[in-house]
């Protein structure tokens, strides 16, 4: 035992069952939403409605990943908003650029 005297005493806590169950639930939701997207890709005809559904489902998936897996929901509010508010620029850029793209003359 003398050679181990420098090793730290580590207390291993038992697994947090409720937390682990929640993580698997989130994984199930992500898988299910992907499956739904996959179905919609073949059921609905191409158009603005289909795109809107895809965008909505993607935001649902992104929210689960960022809030639960990346734990942002449980961080301090200042950190939460410091990450989310700058995303406004992305939305602005998206709207502006795609709008401009639709006005461009047909490219060869």
């Amino acid at each position, binding site marked *: 035992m003398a050679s181990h005297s420098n090793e*730290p005493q580590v207390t291993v806590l038992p697994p947090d069952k409720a937390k682990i169950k929640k993580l698997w639930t989130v994984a199930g939701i992500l898988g299910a939403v992907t499956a739904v997207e996959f179905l919609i*890709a073949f059921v609905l005809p191409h158009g603005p409605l289909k795109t809107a559904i895809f965008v909505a489902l*993607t935001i649902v998936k992104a929210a689960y990943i960022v809030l639960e897996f990346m734990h942002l929901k449980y961080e301090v509010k200042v950190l939460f908003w*410091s990450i989310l508010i700058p995303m406004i620029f992305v939305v602005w850029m998206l709207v502006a650029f795609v709008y401009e793209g639709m006005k461009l003359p047909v490219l060869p």
Partner: protein
Amino acid sequence: MAQAAAATAEKDLWNGGVSPMGASYGKLMMWFFLLSDAFTFSGLLITYGLVRAAHPAFEGLPDAFVFSPEHWPIPEKVFEAIPFFHGVAAPLVFVGIMTFILIMSSVTMVLAVEAGHRMDRKAVEKWMLWTIVGGITFLACQAWEWTHFIVGTDTPTLIKDFVFVNGEGQWITKEVFGANLKINQYGPQSFADFFFFITGFHGFHVFSGVLLNFLIYYNTVTGVYERRGYYEMVEKVGLYWHFVDLVWVFVFTFFYLV
């Protein structure tokens, strides 16, 4: 004396005594790095949207779709191959599997973080190893996907090209198989360029993620974090790994589905 030492240790927590935004320096910087990386990926995906909106879409029923540089391709007509089933049309199945693999590796990562909170070294090792396996599987799938995209379909696309022969310009018809940064059988050249740049940039992130995950696994096995008394590095690299998954969710929608 002991009190003074305790006070210094307290104060050192970012030098002001209180850690800003309730997060450690490393974790906060990881968040802001990921924010800047999100802007980079947004730039790529939004430019894809701009260029796509500037091209005409295919007019007509999806069944009648043909590859042509005249219109933007329908993604599910381009990505419909799966390994070992040559010639079988299985649209979007392979990218669906890839998405599933990445989601699963995100779950194993978050389970490694949970095990780290409990100082459970064996569990961290197990889940980190699964995460690395998931990452490598995804990269292998992407290598196959790229190879298929570059080699092309069995039948070529006929593309008209204007060339100069002995100083005189003339129109010729070329048979084009597959795509690279110079030719593209699937549609306009920019479609292939965006495919390589967007999935390539994401794939490089996955590759770096696998390296970082391996580093964390190595340090866990050698007991670095156990001696340190906490497994925060698992959490920080975990944030990066979830971000890579997050980006793929967007690439999946905007490149493959829409």
